[in-house]
Structures are given as structure tokens and as C-alpha cells.
């Protein structure tokens, strides 16, 4: 099991190195930061001075190593547009994105899993069929369209909920949270639903498919033949076994929720990392883009590790370091 963990950690490090290389290449070859900062009419001397200050006169591999070293310390340089340290900018924006993503993921899981179980148990019937049809809509509807639709209905027409920003926040150390104010929650509803709907539909369909698969297995039939109560058969026996692939997908989806919160954040002017990134793309603010890229990669890698650990918690066969069934005989 230790070996398993060590191997997964090693893979994680490799992935991060590759991503940082891409981020670095982005740094060097997308746009010209010197021109960006000094404008077209700068003198050659000025340009050389700024290039030296930024370390751009060094060989590429030295620059890469320096980039790595600084990145490891959380230093991604200064935003070309705002002139402030990138790390500081991101730290300000991280809470908004994380809270939105957690809310969306929580919504997707808390609603998606029970509905998936229900549609698997009661396969016919109007409710299950409508849910399945709706889930198909949820998967196919583009996020920006759903966001605009929700704003139109609930903010513009009905005027029930705010359509942009985070509303009131409370500072907990450097973390500004919207979870502690009513206004914060009201602002969370529409973007949260927008971000969650696709994931919810995905979780619902995935749980349903896995449940149907598991309910055909011998051990579920045997659980029934022993007269166990339906709740025990469905949840203790079927759902737990159906959860393995669901945990994987939910884990990976949490990564993409954070990464693709970008669109929702743009639609709702949610002051998170995604919005920051969208704005920096417009300005070719490379340090911010590179830092965002590395951060998202870090999120994915971390989540993957956590998912692997979750496997160990769920499946006792993995804890013994083997998945093969034992040989026959007494």
C-alpha cells in the first residue's frame, strides 16, 4: 500500500513538472511581455533593461529553473496588467471560486445520487422517465445559455434573486466567505445551479447506470434471497458497490467544476479565478495565465490523489494490495 502511494505521488510530481513546462513555454512565447509593458516605441536600451530585470536575457533552461523555483514558493511574478503580485491576486480570488465550486458539487451530489438511485430502483413510472429526460437536457444545455436563462427568469422577470457578484462577505483571516451571510447565499443560488446542473445530470445518470449494473450481480440477488429489507439491499449492498466509479468521476468532475467555473463566473460576474483568467486572456497577462494553469493542474492532481485514497477507504481488496480473487480450495 505504501508502494502504491509512493507511485501515485511520483506520477503527480511528473504531471506537475510537465504542466509547469507548458506554463513556462507560454510565458516565453505567447506575446512579448517587454513590448506589452513598454509599448511599441521603447528604446533598445530600455528594452534590454526591462528584459534583464525580468530575467529574459538568461538561457531558456536557467529561466525555467528559476520559474520552477519561484513557482514552488508560490511566486508567479507580477500581473502585467494590474502590476500586483500574481499570488496575491489569485489568493483574493480563490475563495470565491472554491465556494461556488463546493456549492455546485454539493448540490450535484446531494441531489444527483438520490435521484440516480431512485431512477434505478423504480425504472418505469412517470417520475423516473421525466427525470431521465430532464437529465438529458441538463447534459446538453450549454452553461452560458442556462445562466442567461436563469438570470432572465429569476432576476429580470421575477426579481427574486441577484444576478451578479458575491454579495456580502465575511472575512475569516484572509478567506472571504459568502457562506455566512444571507445575501451571500442569495447570490450563490443562480450561479451555483448553473454550474451544478450539468454535473447533477451526469451524477444522476452515472449512479443509475452503475446501480442497474450492480443490482444484476449475484450478491445483490443473494441479499434479496436472505430476506434483507429493501433499504439494506439498495443502499448497503448495491449503492456502496456502485459508488466506486462514481467517486472517480465525481472527483475528476470537481476538478473540472473549478476549472470551468470560468464560464459561469463570466456570466454572473462572479469575482473568482475564472473571471480573473478570462480578463487576463483579453490582456495577454501571461503571468496570471501561467499561474492559473499551474494552480488548476495542482487541483486536478490533488483531487486524483484524494480519489485514489478514497478507493482504499471504500474497497478492502485494495487495502491488501491485490485485486485478484484467491485460488479455490479449502
Amino acid at each position, binding site marked *: 500500500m505504501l508502494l502504491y502511494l509512493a507511485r501515485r505521488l511520483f506520477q503527480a510530481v511528473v504531471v506537475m513538472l510537465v504542466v509547469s513546462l507548458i506554463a513556462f513555454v507560454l510565458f516565453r512565447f505567447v506575446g512579448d511581455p517587454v513590448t506589452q509593458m513598454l509599448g511599441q516605441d521603447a528604446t533598445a536600451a530600455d528594452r534590454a533593461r526591462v528584459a534583464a530585470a525580468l530575467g529574459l536575457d538568461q538561457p531558456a533552461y536557467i529561466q525555467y529553473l528559476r520559474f520552477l523555483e519561484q513557482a514552488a514558493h508560490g511566486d508567479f511574478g507580477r500581473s502585467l496588467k494590474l502590476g500586483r503580485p500574481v499570488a496575491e491576486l489569485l489568493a483574493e480570488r480563490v475563495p470565491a471560486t472554491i465556494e461556488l465550486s463546493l456549492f455546485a458539487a454539493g448540490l450535484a451530489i446531494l441531489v444527483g445520487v438520490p435521484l440516480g438511485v431512485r431512477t434505478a430502483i423504480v425504472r418505469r413510472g412517470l417520475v423516473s422517465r421525466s427525470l431521465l429526460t430532464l437529465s438529458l437536457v441538463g447534459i446538453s444545455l450549454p452553461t452560458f445559455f442556462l445562466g442567461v436563462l436563469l438570470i432572465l427568469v429569476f432576476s429580470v422577470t421575477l426579481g427574486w434573486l441577484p444576478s451578479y457578484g458575491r454579495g456580502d462577505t465575511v472575512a475569516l483571516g484572509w478567506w472571504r466567505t459568502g457562506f455566512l451571510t444571507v445575501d451571500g447565499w442569495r447570490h450563490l443560488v443562480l450561479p451555483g445551479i448553473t454550474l451544478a446542473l450539468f454535473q447533477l445530470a451526469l451524477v444522476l445518470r452515472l449512479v443509475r447506470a452503475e446501480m442497474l449494473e450492480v443490482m444484476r450481480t449475484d*450478491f445483490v440477488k443473494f441479499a434479496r434471497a436472505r*430476506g*434483507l429489507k429493501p433499504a439494506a439491499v439498495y443502499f448497503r449492498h448495491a449503492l456502496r458497490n456502485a459508488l466506486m466509479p462514481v467517486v472517480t468521476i465525481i472527483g475528476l468532475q470537481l476538478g473540472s467544476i473549478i476549472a470551468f467555473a470560468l464560464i459561469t463566473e463570466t456570466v454572473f460576474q462572479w469575482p473568482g479565478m475564472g473571471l480573473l483568467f478570462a480578463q487576463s486572456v483579453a490582456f495577454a497577462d501571461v503571468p496570471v495565465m501561467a499561474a492559473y494553469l499551474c494552480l488548476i493542474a495542482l487541483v486536478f492532481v490533488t483531487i486524483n490523489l484524494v480519489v485514489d485514497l478514497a478507493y482504499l477507504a471504500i*474497497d478492502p481488496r485494495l487495502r491488501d494490495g491485490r485485486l485478484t480473487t*484467491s485460488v*479455490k*480450495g*479449502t
Partner: protein
Amino acid sequence: MALLEIRDLAVDFVTRRRRVRALDGISLDIDAGEIVGMVGESGAGKSLTGAAVIGLLVPPGRISGGEIRLDGQAITGLGEAAMRRIRGRRIGTIFQDPLTALNPLLTVGEQLVETITTHLPMSRAAARKRAIALLEETGIPSAGRRIDHYPHQFSGGMRQRVVIALALAGDPQVIIADEPTTALDVSVQAQILDLLRRLCRDHDAAVLLITHDLGVVAETADRVAVMYAGRIVETGPTAAIMGRPRHPYTAGLMRAIPTVGDLRPRLAQIGGAMPRPGALPHGCAFGPRCPAARPDCTAAAPVPIRHGDVLVACRHPDLTEAA
């Protein structure tokens, strides 16, 4: 009155377009302390009979005729909730494949305790004691320690013992063992059959042993029911049937058993294949494959006729030659 009585049981598979009779006129009694072996080739309806008895027919299959009585009380037509209280509590089921019948994510003890507390008014601690006792009874060494192990930590034979312990958890009067030894090594098979016999005796249970292996039946069962194409073609005491099979299908099955010192270059086969339900030939279903078929065999399905202790559904049992 037998503990388990099956009377004229019929099972149909009903779809929008047609209705196919999969079991027809199944009648069988099993007394307490008795093992009845049910043999026949794949698709004959053996497992279907077992599923019908515990009320777990997979739709669109359903009981469309006859009656199943447990201890004198009809259980056909009971609601799902009432049926659930019978399953595991009064009728235990042993599954075929011990590698897939256990939930891989729960310890053996968790699965046993859960089954025990579902059926018997016991605290978890008492249920755990009973679980250990059951594991000991089914022959699992150091049961007190093994109870906290997961299924994958047991060998195939040991897992089948766990499956049997689970089937016994609610102290049922009837045990349906569906191919309990098919997935096991031959040496382990004998041990499991021994165990089954001992449990039947000790618990005074009625056991329905479903198998395609006539050898298993000969070794274990008190009585035999031979199934063919959804019907019982011959039933009676094991010794009487093995000694003098009257139905040509039974005789054919027996000729197909290999024995030590057999000098035949090839085992006898029964030519052709069993007809599918819904495509039965007119008259006797075995007719087209029968070496002793006569013109009148196609008239109507033969009714079972008594010959001493044996019931045979064949018009010309005298034409059947023993192997």
C-alpha cells in the same frame, strides 16, 4: 403433510406479444430432514423452480398456476413484504458461485449479523455470537477471528461455507441449494455435500438440491426429481430411480455418467438438444430425442403414472432399458 409442497406449479414468461410456459405441472413434496435432488440439463427449469419457491422470479416471469405450501400455508400469492419475511427466515437459499455471492465490501461478520438481526430478535452482540457459531458449524476454523475478514480473504471452498452459513442465519426450515458445488473443485465438492447432509439432519430441514450432476444426487439425495423442458419426467427414491430408471431421459442421463473402470471408448450421449420453452414439440417433449419413441408419443403430453414409489411421465416405460 410434507413441509414444502409444490402442486401443479406453472410459470409463464409474459411479454406484450406472447406468453411462454417455462414450467408446467411441477409437483413435488419435501419432508423435514429430507434431501430431494432436482436434476436436468441447463434450461430445464430447475433454478426457475427454486426462484418461484422463494418468490424471486425475474419479470416477466411469473407464477400462473398451481400452489406452493410451506408447512401447510400457501405462500403463492403472498405480498412482497410477507414474502420477504419468509425468505431467509423460513426458506434459506444457497447460491451457486461463492466468488460472486458475497458482497466484497462488507466483512463476513457484517453480512451475517445483518441477516441475523433482520430475522431474529437479537442484539448485535448476540447476533455476532450466533454468527461465529454458524461459521463454526459450517466448518470454518478459528471462526472468532475469521468473522472480521472480507470475502476475498477466503478460499473458494471456505466462501461456499460462508454462503451456507448466511443461508442458515435465520434458522430456515427449508433450504434451496442451487448448484452449491458446481463452482468448486471435486475434493471440496465432497466436503460441501457432506456438510449439506449433516445440516439437513441436525436442523431437520427440508433441502431442495438443484444440480445438473446425477452423481451429486446419487451421493446426497434421498429422493430425485428429473426435469426436462419445464416438466418433471420422473420422481421417486434415489435408489429406485438409479437402480431402474423408467423414463428414457433418466436412462440417457445415467448412461452419460462416467465411472471408474469404464471400458466404453466414448460416453453415451443423448442426441439432439432440449427444446426451448415456447417451442415444445407436440405430445411428449422428449419424443424427438427418444430412442424408444412410438407413434402415440406425439398424441398429448404424458401424465405421470405411478410405478411403486416412482412417478414416471412416459407412455412406454417398459421400453426403457437400464444402462
